[in-house]
């Protein structure tokens, strides 16, 4: 660089204005499109034998379009630099050409010209030229003015589109959820999960502000000439290592048309005290308003009155059917590989579908693109390990995470009769991301988990999730981008019993799906248009029951495989009508085909689906469409900002669900099976109206929100009393379609930053079901509305964190909720030689209220950057007050008397410790 400037300086002595060049210049033939200066110069150097000197940085925003045939060099250069402030000087005697910016090289060259040109070179973040070696962002980058696009003579006015990636300066990983907004706040965007953004900016000078979870706020100054690409590097906020940062969107919660959406990043999740000290995504989700669970030993969750199967749980675009380990004591997601979690509970974007209540989108990190790093963690019951790093520096990175249990020492404490028992789980995550070039990215993600329990070599129970997805992201230009995903998701379980030879058996269930989807995004000045298609092919084996020993008398029984295809197309538009008014409107059309081969029962119309009313069984051949369901789903969101810090949002959405979980227990249990809609089981349909008010105080450091909703559910599956769900050949005779309604109000106050931070959320909500169709079989509670099993009207959660120093913080979480409904005995009677309980109507009474408080202390090792490893300790106590929260209440007739018992899963304080080392 220095050499270049000496040459440049020397050259002034010989320079003459280009317009004064004599004839006899070399002639060139050049045809290039959208070329950078270096391509252009290379071509000219080849043809003219002249050397070109220029400062790359100055020309980085220039794109050259030229078509010239046998023209003189000056004509070509004139044409190339037309309408720009680039100038040239041909020093023919010396056989070189100087290219400059702003002024032609003359004696009047401004004094600061070189200084300005040399500054910030190392900090440039533009993709084509950006220096990848920088590890720290110089503050001066915020003062540099970047020129974007081709300068044209069309003058002021008009709009330009700016797009690019936001990445972590240290690891090169993209940062999703970065809020980018102009200084007036009227134009904003949020980076997607790949860190990609696109903004429509007016021509001329713009200041962009960037804010993100745990990252230092930064800004960039730009002069927009035409559409351009602009990558931004952000730096981690080291001082805030232990700060709860709940929302990236300090302003975003006010500005986004999205409502009922929560984003948590892994740092927040880590701070919330967790059972056994293992950070648990699902448990943190439960502290958010509108998210509830039936009890402690269940990771299934209920969103705004939805059942546990109405949540679409996506892990890197793969559907996870059982999100829990160890009967729900751990969630299926390894906290070390998770980047962030998004939960949509009211306005669900049109690109998602297939479940009624919510979408939980979990994405894993891409891995460090610069160097190999990793971490290892030790807990009481589990240990974790992850390693990440580049395969090809700055291009390809991987992250591999694994967890396993070592519960064997616990089993040793048991009496000798259990010495052959085993219990454990493991899971493995692998993600590889590859950047072909800034416009083409490929992501491969795999997940495998397995849980296994066996009791004295008698009954063995196991289940497993397996997922693989391949995703390709292509950016056509600033206005268009596309993502294509193909994947395989599977879930299975087995129960085997071999002790009793006569009865030895194995029961199996599995579901497999192949997915494909393509999503396109089109950015226009006031619109962001998204559209796409998706299809899922399901193959579900509802059950097989096989003898497990030669002596076994068990009759093999296999339920027929179910096949179906669910396809959808969607279109949505986010329209900024005015800076204060944004409309997000979407439509999704889903089409579901239940496919053969299958024998399908038909029942007498107008009569309950009972074995007695079976009319006939029809056999359908392979691939034959047996039944089609289809319909539109609408997604609407409207945001109006009354002031800078106060907005109102309203939304309506409708959804359809074609796959159902069958379970007549309250929580997700590992033996639950899934069922596809068929001619006898209609898809579920739900819609929701919601309204929200969002107000930020104290310079956006305190966020408050109030959301109300009303939801209707049609064809929600409930069960006839005493339904048999496993190995049932006529499952349709044991389920009933009910109607549901849910409504509630959710209040939240959040203080994301400061020494004391956290949030308080309160929810009042109801979910009521109704079964009043006598033709469907039995009427429940006389056809009146009855509360669903997980109806818990009041729910208050306080999550607080106090940071004493940068290395030490304490978190305290408290949660209170109404006890869930139960069916209690209202009387007793004598039958079969014993007193027995007479039960009241379904779900008319409640178990005692729930209260729990957890404490954790996070202690970090020192923060010196240079040391080889970084350690951290987490100590804590789960259920600090030792309250015996009943999980269930039940009644047993014992010695002729009916006794009520309450079962608490955690009857005491549970201390925990967890050690993590990062390298």
């Amino acid at each position, binding site marked *: 660089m220095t050499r270049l400037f000496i040459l440049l300086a020397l050259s002034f002595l010989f320079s003459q204005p280009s317009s004064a060049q004599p004839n006899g210049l070399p002639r060139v033939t050049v045809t290039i499109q959208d070329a950078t200066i270096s391509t252009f110069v290379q071509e000219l150097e080849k043809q003219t034998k002249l050397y070109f000197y220029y400062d790359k940085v100055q020309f980085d925003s220039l794109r050259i379009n030229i078509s010239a045939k046998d023209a003189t060099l000056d004509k070509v250069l004139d044409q190339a630099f037309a309408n720009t402030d680039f100038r040239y000087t041909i020093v023919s005697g010396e056989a070189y050409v100087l290219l400059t910016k702003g002024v032609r090289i003359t004696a009047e060259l401004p004094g600061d010209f070189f200084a300005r040109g040399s500054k910030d070179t190392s900090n440039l973040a533009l993709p084509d030229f950006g220096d990848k070696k920088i590890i720290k962002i110089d503050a001066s980058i915020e003062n540099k003015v970047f020129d974007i696009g081709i300068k044209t003579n069309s003058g002021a006015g008009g709009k330009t589109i700016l797009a690019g990636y936001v990445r972590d300066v240290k690891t090169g990983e993209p940062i999703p959820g970065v809020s980018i907004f102009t200084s007036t706040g009227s134009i904003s965007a949020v980076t997607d999960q790949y860190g990609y953004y696109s903004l429509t900016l007016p021509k001329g000078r713009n200041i962009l502000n960037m804010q993100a979870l745990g990252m230092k706020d930064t800004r960039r100054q730009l002069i927009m000439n035409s559409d351009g690409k602009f990558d931004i590097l952000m730096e981690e906020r080291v001082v805030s290592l232990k700060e709860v940062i709940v929302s990236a969107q300090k302003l975003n919660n006010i500005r986004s048309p999205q409502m009922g959406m929560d984003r948590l990043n892994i740092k927040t999740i880590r701070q919330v005290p967790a059972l056994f000290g293992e950070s648990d995504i699902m448990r943190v989700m439960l502290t958010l308003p509108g998210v509830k669970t039936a*009890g402690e030993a269940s990771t299934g969750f209920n969103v705004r009155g939805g059942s546990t199967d109405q949540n679409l749980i996506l892990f890197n675009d793969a559907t996870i059917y059982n999100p829990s380990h*160890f*009967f729900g004591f751990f969630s299926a997601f390894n906290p070390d590989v998770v980047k962030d979690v998004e939960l949509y509970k009211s306005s669900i974007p049109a690109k998602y579908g297939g479940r009624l209540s919510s979408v939980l989108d979990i994405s894993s990190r891409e891995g460090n693109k610069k160097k190999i790093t990793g971490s290892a963690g030790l807990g009481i019951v589990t240990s974790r390990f992850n390693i990440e790093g580049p395969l090809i520096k700055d291009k390809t990175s991987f992250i591999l995470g694994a967890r396993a249990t070592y*519960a064997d020492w616990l089993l040793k404490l*048991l009496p000798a009769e*259990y010495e052959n*028992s085993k*219990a454990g789980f493991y899971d493995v995550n692998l993600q590889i991301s590859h950047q072909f070039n800034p416009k083409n990215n490929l992501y491969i993600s795999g997940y495998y988990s397995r849980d296994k329990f066996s*009791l004295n070599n008698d*009954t063995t*129970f196991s289940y497993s999730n397996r997922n693989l997805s391949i995703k390709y992201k292509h950016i056509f230009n600033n206005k268009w981008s596309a993502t294509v995903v193909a994947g395989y998701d599977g879930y299975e379980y087995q129960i085997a019993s071999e002790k009793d030879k*006569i009865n030895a058996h194995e029961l199996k269930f599995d579901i497999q799906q192949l997915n494909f989807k393509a999503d396109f995004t089109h950015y226009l000045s006031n619109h962001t248009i998204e559209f796409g298609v998706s299809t899922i092919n399901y193959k579900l084996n509802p059950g097989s*029951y096989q003898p497990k020993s030669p002596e076994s*008398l*068990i*009759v093999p029984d296999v339920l027929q495989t179910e096949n179906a295809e669910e396809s959808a197309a969607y279109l949505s538009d986010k329209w900024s009508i005015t800076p204060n008014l944004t409309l997000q409107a979407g439509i999704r059309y889903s089409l579901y085909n239940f496919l053969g081969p299958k024998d399908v029962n038909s029942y007498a119309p107008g009569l309950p689906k009972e074995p007695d009313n079976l009319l006939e069984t029809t056999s359908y051949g392979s691939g034959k469409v047996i039944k089609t369901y289809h319909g539109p789903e609408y997604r609407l969101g409207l945001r109006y900002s009354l002031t800078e810090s106060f907005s109102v949002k309203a939304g309506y959405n409708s959804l359809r669900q074609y796959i159902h979980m069958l379970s*007549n*227990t*309250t*929580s997700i*249990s590992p033996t639950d099976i899934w069922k596809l809609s068929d001619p006898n089981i209609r898809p579920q349909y739900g819609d929701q109206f919601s309204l929200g008010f969002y107000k930020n105080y104290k310079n956006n450091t305190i966020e408050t929100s109030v959301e109300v909703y009303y939801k209707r559910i049609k064809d929600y599956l409930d069960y006839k*009393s*005493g339904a048999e769900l496993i190995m049932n050949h006529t499952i349709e005779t044991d389920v009933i379609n009910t109607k549901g309604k849910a409504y509630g109000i959710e209040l939240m106050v959040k203080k994301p930053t400061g020494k004391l931070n956290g949030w308080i959320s309160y929810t009042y909500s109801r979910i009521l079901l109704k079964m009043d169709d006598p033709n469907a079989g*039995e009427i429940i509670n*006389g056809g009146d509305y009855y509360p669903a099993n997980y109806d818990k009207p009041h729910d208050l959660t306080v999550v607080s964190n106090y940071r004493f120093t940068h290395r030490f913080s304490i978190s305290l979480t408290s949660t209170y909720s109404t006890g869930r409904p*139960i*069916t*209690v*005995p*209202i*009387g*007793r*009677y*004598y*039958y*079969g*030689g*014993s*007193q027995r309980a*007479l*039960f009241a109507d*379904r779900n008319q*009474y409640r178990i005692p209220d729930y209260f729990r408080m957890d404490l954790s202390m996070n202690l970090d090792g020192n923060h010196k950057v240079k040391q080889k490893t970084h350690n951290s300790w987490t100590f804590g106590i789960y259920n600090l007050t030792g309250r*015996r929260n009943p999980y*269930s209440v*039940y*009644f*047993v007739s014992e010695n*002729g008397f*009916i*006794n009520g*018992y*309450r*079962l*608490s*899963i*955690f*009857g*005491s304080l*549970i201390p925990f410790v967890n050690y993590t080392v990062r390298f």
Partner: protein
Amino acid sequence: MKKLFNVFLALLALSCKDSYDLPVNIPATGYLVVDGTINSGQGATYINLSKTVRLVDSFNVNYVTNAIVTVEGEDNSKFTLAHKSNGQYINNQLNLNRAIKYRLRIRSDNKEYLSSYIPVKQSPAIDSVNWEKTDNGVDIYVDAKGNSNTSGYYRWDYDEDWEFTSSYAPTLRYNTTPLAEYIYRDQSADLTKYVCYQAARSTTIEILSTARLSRDTTHYRVTTVPMASWKLSVLYSILVRQYSISKEGFEYLSRMKKNTEQTGSIFDAQPSELKGNITCSTNPAEPVIGFVEISEMYSKRIFIKNSQVTPWGYTQGCTLMSLRNNPDSIRGAGYPTPVIPEETSPLTGVITRLYTTDISCIDCTLRGTLTKPSFWP
């Protein structure tokens, strides 16, 4: 599943169970409960009628004693069951036609209850009632083989009877005249309250489906006599009765069993509603509890001797207390029951010390009855 989970919880030593008191605002019920099977084979038919009571009520069973109970055939045949005692209605021998269906009609308190028409089910005879000694006690099994005419759904109930003895046969008693506090010696042991009998009925619902088995063959454990139980201290007898039931009846009873005998772990289903085959025709909204079946009833009795199961390990837990034979000692000890002499004066033959015990150790009538069952060997 449930077992696994419980072990898992035990592993973590976390879970706990507390008693739970019911809410107070529970309504009164008083629904009719019909318990019994119409016997289409040889032998009597018993139908027990009662009403549900509140959990807080002090009495156990609210018997219905004023009902009119009839079995009606589709051919208009009619059989009446007469009230005997405690809500039990009996007909000593019904003569039912296998080819037609029958229903039960109950009239009580100006209300009428009707069952649906029920087919007469055939039942296989009991092949054998057998037993096996395990570490936990003696398991009683019933074996049967169904055929193409039988439903494959079974219900059993049973009566247990057993003989037992007092721990001691006393040879001493208090001298009631003239001085109450002296002991006199009876030359022979008093055996009048030494051998007694006790009986029990099954208290659980024992049902089985063979629908999932390739053969309609049962080897079902109806009950277990726990190790060292007094039931097998001398001689034990069990009479097992077997009925065939319908699929619906099986489902009804298994739901009742689940609701009342098995609920309570994490993965158990919520209690479910019971809807039997009897309705109140005067007030269809009123629930009626019970599922009436018509089946041939077969029964079989076996005896098991203590000597067949030794070592059994039964003790009543009685001990002998040594006492000086004088009024002060006897009064001071609170008049314990005298058993046998300990020391006798060699000169006078007077008892100087004696062994005493608790009254329950010599009087078996406190735990049973002296009446020997008619079938006892």
